[in-house]
């Protein structure tokens, strides 16, 4: 399957980066990277969060001006920091966050900035619609170009972005995490589109975390680690283990740490909590040191349940008690006072204040403990936050660094670590490893298991099946904002457990080996 390239030298490259260096706020992100992309090849750019993948792409597409080094497109020097010049030379980027304008239609999005006009100078909508239909069909998209783009699934919008880039003559296509937001079924379509582009001689560079996607789409894999290019190999010459080792810089032993036992004392008790109108009441308990997994399909109500427990959302009825004391519904402050901590699913939108420093973010939830008569005691918070962040192995340029300059994995460490300057009895985790790469992931797993071993009651919602199977003492499978079934540790270790969970989550079959809703206390 790998496409053979005759004489892949830097001279024949479509895109050639040499000696790229870049740092943000004094933190070096790229330390001299050389990369060449050959025509008609697909290159996977692998690396952990913070390795510098997105930065490299933004430099190659002219969005950032590198501190040193140069970018050449088909031999021509790319004027530094000019997106317009990059577009002119045929370099297009499809960013991680979609750039389409949701209120406009598909064809308007495709033609915005280079509209087809009538001789009178007005918009020639018919011609645009005709051309849009044709180019969409070229990519195997059978959609009406007059629908609003916001109404389409993310995966389709992503492909439309690719259509837009290539129909403007892009010969080098950079895809930043193209699969992070789309469903598995849509990944296949994307791979097809990429293969199609390769045949047309386009050079494609994409970033991903997932090994299957590297295998399905790439000819060649390039690994960045700590701002350096560690590996550059044809896909046929490297094993999966080789790629992972190159990414994290050490052998990947066990991704999941061993799970210890747990205590008997009940910490968190949820009674008859009705999360959404018409949903069944939810009741369960979590003991000291126990990790309770929440499994289920997207939209099953896992996040909503966690939000109701913590008080970001008000339940319709029911109570939450922590160590025997009831929490006030809809009051995060009451949960915090009872030593409940949360790591929300949406790190940037709900977890961190990006414009503030690591120190200020970490001060916020424990602000009372770090201040006297309302005045913050600087030394106290510095030593407490510094100690926690050091124990979490946070990679930052000091505690004063702004959150927005940290990688996703490091942001997550701050969002979790900020609670640990004080007592935490109940820890609520919502998709704790979303957008976190393999290396940081195993670190976060270790932290979670350690925290449970210290006596916290942990509730962990996760879409990642191995997480639930390996990290939970017990799991609830949710469906329609209620609990569809409960699986014990021994049931989680059963060989057919994935099937059981799937059937419970989708409601296909009620006759499961376990009896749902069995009392736990």
């Amino acid at each position, binding site marked *: 399957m790998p496409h053979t390239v005759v004489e892949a030298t830097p001279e024949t490259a479509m895109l050639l980066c040499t000696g790229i260096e870049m740092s943000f706020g004094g933190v070096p992100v790229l330390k001299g990277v050389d990369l060449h992309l050959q025509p008609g090849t697909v290159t996977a750019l692998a690396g952990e969060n913070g390795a510098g993948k997105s930065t490299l792409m933004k430099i190659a597409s002219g969005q950032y001006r590198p501190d040193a080094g140069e970018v050449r497109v088909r031999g021509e020097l790319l004027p530094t920091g000019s997106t317009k010049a990059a577009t002119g030379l045929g370099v297009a980027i499809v960013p991680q966050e979609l750039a389409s304008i949701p209120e406009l239609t598909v064809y308007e999005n495709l033609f915005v900035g280079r509209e087809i006009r009538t001789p009178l100078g007005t918009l020639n909508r018919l011609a645009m619609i005709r051309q849009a239909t044709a180019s969409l069909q070229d990519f195997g998209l059978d959609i009406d170009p007059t629908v609003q783009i916001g109404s389409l699934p993310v995966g389709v919008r992503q492909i439309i972005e690719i259509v837009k880039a290539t129909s403007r003559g892009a010969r080098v296509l950079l895809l930043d995490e193209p699969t992070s937001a789309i469903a598995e079924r849509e990944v296949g379509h994307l791979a097809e589109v990429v293969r199609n582009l390769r045949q047309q001689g386009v050079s494609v560079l994409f970033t991903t975390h997932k090994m299957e996607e590297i295998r399905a789409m790439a000819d060649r894999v390039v690994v960045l680690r700590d701002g350096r290019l560690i590996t550059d190999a044809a896909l046929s010459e490297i094993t999966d283990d080789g790629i992972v080792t190159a990414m994290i810089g050490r052998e990947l032993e066990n991704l999941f740490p061993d799970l210890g036992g747990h205590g008997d004392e009940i910490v968190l008790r949820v009674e008859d909590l009705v999360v959404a109108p018409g949903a069944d009441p939810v009741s369960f308990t979590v003991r000291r040191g126990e990790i309770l997994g929440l499994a289920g399909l997207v939209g099953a109500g896992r996040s909503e349940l966690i939000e109701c427990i913590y008080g970001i959302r008000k339940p319709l009825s029911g109570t939450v008690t922590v160590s025997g004391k009831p929490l006030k519904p809809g009051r995060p402050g009451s949960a915090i006072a009872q030593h409940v901590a949360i790591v929300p699913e949406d790190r940037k939108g709900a977890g961190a204040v990006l414009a503030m420093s690591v120190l200020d973010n970490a001060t916020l939830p424990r602000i009372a403990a770090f201040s006297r008569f309302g005045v913050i005691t600087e030394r106290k918070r510095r030593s407490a936050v510094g100690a926690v962040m050091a124990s979490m192995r946070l990679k930052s340029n*000091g505690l004063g660094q702004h959150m927005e300059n940290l990688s996703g994995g490091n942001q997550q460490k701050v969002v979790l670590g900020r609670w640990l300057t004080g007592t935490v009895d109940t820890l609520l985790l919502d998709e704790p490893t979303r957008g976190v790469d393999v290396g940081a992931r195993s670190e976060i797993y270790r932290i979670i298991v350690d925290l449970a071993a210290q006596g916290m009651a942990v509730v962990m919602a996760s879409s990642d099946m191995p997480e639930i199977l390996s990290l939970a003492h017990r799991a609830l499978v949710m469906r329609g904002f209620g609990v569809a079934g409960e699986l014990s540790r021994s049931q989680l270790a059963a060989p057919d457990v994935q099937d059981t969970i799937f059937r419970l989550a989708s409601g296909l079959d009620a006759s499961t080996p376990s009896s749902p809703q069995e009392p736990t206390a």
Partner: protein
Amino acid sequence: MSTTNADVVSTQDTRRWTSLIGDLLVRHIMIVVMLLIVAFFAYRSARFATADNMLTILIAAAPFALIALGQTLVILTGGIDLSVGSVIAASAMAAAWSAKHFGDNPIFPLLAAVLAGLVAGAVNGLVVSRLNVPPFIATLGMLTLASGIAYVIGNGAPINGLPSTYGMWANSGIGGFTIPVVLMIVAILAFAFIMRRTAYGLRVYAVGGNRLAAEIAGVRSRGVLFSVYLISGLLAGLSGLMLSSRVITGAPNLGQGYELDAIAAVVIGGASLMGGRGTIWGTAIGLLLIQTINNGLDLLLVPSYWQNVIKGVIIVAAVTVDVWAAKRSK
């Protein structure tokens, strides 16, 4: 913690001194702009660089300083307070009315002005934080409403013939440092401390930077929002008292358009209208910049219409330079 400290030191060591000074200049670009403007006026006018004139600038700056401080807090939460100019008028009229009716004791006008400012601020705060009306609209309403009330209090006319004690608030002081100047200096220092060193300050930044994340971290964001409008109203009330006390008259058109100068000062000071970014020191510099330009142009006998033209250009140019510098230092 030792590892993070080591990181900081190593990256700073590698930087060269020249670029360090360059960085410093870029980061404090407004101070550079300020010095250039001061140098220009000092060169063109013999009177500009006298101690007397510096004091004149401070006296003129004081009422603006108070509302600009309030405005800074509001803008840090991502809001805006358009009503401060009118609240100045309403509280000045309330103060003058109380002096007219309750006699010589200067404490009555103070209470009346503070009360009027607090009420206006509280209404703004409630409408924004409880009813979720966008701050622009809520305070636009208050702008019109408070201006109307100012005219209602005086039956459409200024309140004259006030007792001479009414002038005490603006005109007494020690050696030229009148009450407004002292109040301005104290307020700037106090708010700089509050925003940098207190739990309240951190909460204001957090709510402005990301309201949901702040709430999840236990911040009662509604309370924070309410408080910034209340503070802005209170400071506008005091500002109204100072302004009307200076001329010992209550004028219903006092403070008209002042909100725009206050917003300009905050923005020149580097604050983001989206919230979460900005400092009290920045606002203080922005304020002094505007007041210095006003004063310098007066001394050069530039006609007032042209002054507005020049001021408008300088405001946009200053912020443009700041945006450029922020981009460069990134």
